[in-house]
């Protein structure tokens, strides 16, 4: 199986694994808010957020390379946004006489890289330590109030957990199809971007067809196991907040306070200078 770090559960026994999914979801959202609260030009706030990620990864017993790997999937996107910042930012002073790369451009690029990296690694920690079923149950529970306005919360949660469950399967399948097409002489590596995109069509179509077949079979298998929607359904996993979750909430509250404080502190510093 090709290594798909983002979105796959990493089984381990840890403090974070044992936390309630709902708490972890809320903390992750709070973490993303914290990352976005960090002001431009202010990397100390990022350092605090990075410290939070490291702390969580250590407490969760997730090997560090796993966390780093989760960035790989969107590395292209990160590099692209950084390069665009560097190339097209017109503010600030040019680094050299008549040059188009400015100091602010570079700082902004670093800022974007830090922001995306932190958000992705933070989110990956949620999926590393929470099984898709827990995640779906957690979201279902958090969204329960929406059932009052007749939104299909249970169905939504189930669709999500099944989608997560099928990601590795479909990645495997994509790999197989690419190999099969290569064996027939398909060329994915040369030509310009349009040629390469076009080369993907013979991969996407079989993938689409097989996904429909899988969906069909899965539906039969679910029916065969008496699936009938959320009515009269029980839940095997019990959700219960524990002291762990309280500690988590305290830590994330500390982080947000810290970030806000550092933002203010920076202003004082800047005025002082």
């Amino acid at each position, binding site marked *: 199986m090709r290594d798909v770090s983002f979105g796959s559960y990493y089984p381990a026994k840890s403090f974070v694994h044992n936390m309630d999914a709902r708490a972890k979801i809320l903390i992750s959202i709070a973490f993303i808010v914290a990352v976005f609260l960090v002001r431009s030009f202010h990397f100390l706030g990022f350092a605090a957020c990075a410290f939070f990620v490291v702390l969580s990864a250590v407490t969760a017993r997730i090997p560090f390379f796993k966390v780093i790997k989760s960035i790989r999937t969107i590395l292209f996107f990160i590099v692209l946004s950084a390069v665009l910042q560097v190339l097209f930012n017109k503010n600030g002073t040019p680094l050299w006489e008549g040059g188009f790369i400015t100091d602010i451009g570079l700082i902004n690029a670093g800022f974007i890289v830090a922001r995306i990296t932190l958000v992705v690694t933070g989110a990956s920690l949620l999926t590393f330590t929470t099984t898709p079923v827990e995640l779906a149950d957690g979201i279902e529970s958090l969204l329960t109030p929406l059932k009052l306005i007749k939104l299909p919360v249970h169905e939504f949660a189930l669709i999500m957990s099944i989608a997560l469950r099928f990601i590795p399967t479909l990645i495997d399948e994509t790999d197989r199809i690419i190999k099969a097409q290569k064996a027939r002489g398909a060329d994915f590596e040369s030509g310009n971007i349009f040629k390469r995109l076009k080369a993907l069509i013979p991969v996407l179509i079989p993938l689409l067809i097989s996904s429909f077949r899988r969906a069909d079979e899965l539906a039969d298998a679910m029916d*065969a196991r008496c699936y009938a929607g959320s009515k009269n359904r029980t839940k095997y996993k*019990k959700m219960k907040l524990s002291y762990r979750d309280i500690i988590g909430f305290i830590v994330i509250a500390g982080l947000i306070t810290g970030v806000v404080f550092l933002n203010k502190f920076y202003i004082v510093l800047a005025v002082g200078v």
Partner: protein
Amino acid sequence: MALLEVQNVSYSYEKNKPVLKNVSFRVEEGEHVAVIGHNGSGKSTLAKLLNALLIPASGTVTVDGFSSADKKSLFEIRKRVGLVFQNPDNQLVASIVEDDVAFGPENIGVKREEIKERIDFALSAVGMQDFLKASPMRLSGGQKQRIAIAGVLALKPKILVLDESTAMLDPAGRAEIAEVVKTLKKDGVTVISVTHYMDEAMTADRIFVLSKGEIIKTGSPKEVFSDRETLKAAELCVPLATSIADKLKENGVDVRGDVFTAEDLGAALCV
């Protein structure tokens, strides 16, 4: 009354193209029946009719007294007839073994404490009790299929229908499933295995031969595999040991008696 009764069942997906024609049979409690037939003969359609995934166009399917024509008995039938499909990847709904096995009991509203018991029971029945927290993606094909079987067993079915559940497995995986079937039979579960492997069919009490939507022969494995005419008509082959014995006979080796299994062959040659 037999546990499972299929009476004059016909079914078609498209008009005027009947896939099953007037099929009738009964299966008694504790029996092991194998259904063999070439591709497209209607085996999967038959399997789906048995647990009310499909409802016969004409005729009736009755399980433990519940008719699949009656909408109200839908779940009573599905609880009693567990259906396992070919591709384990397309049957597992959850990313953790125990969550997947819990899916069926959750659906029928079993209480939490009992779900735990059922998970333990189902996983031990397939010998996967050590994989409670494992991720099915990291398991072998045979192990995945055992989890799929456990997911169905957690509903405590009386009848287990395996629709070519070994077709995508390697020989080791097939042996694992054969072992599971053996244990289940001992525990009194009625097993109906749809299969392409004649050696697998040999282990059943009775074999139904399906050809072009009709059951053209029913009988013990020995009866069925001795009837070369019928096998030919159904485009099926004989078990491996039988074909080896045939070749040996053709070449003048003295092979006495009927040979259907490796043991038969050994006995016939070593006397």
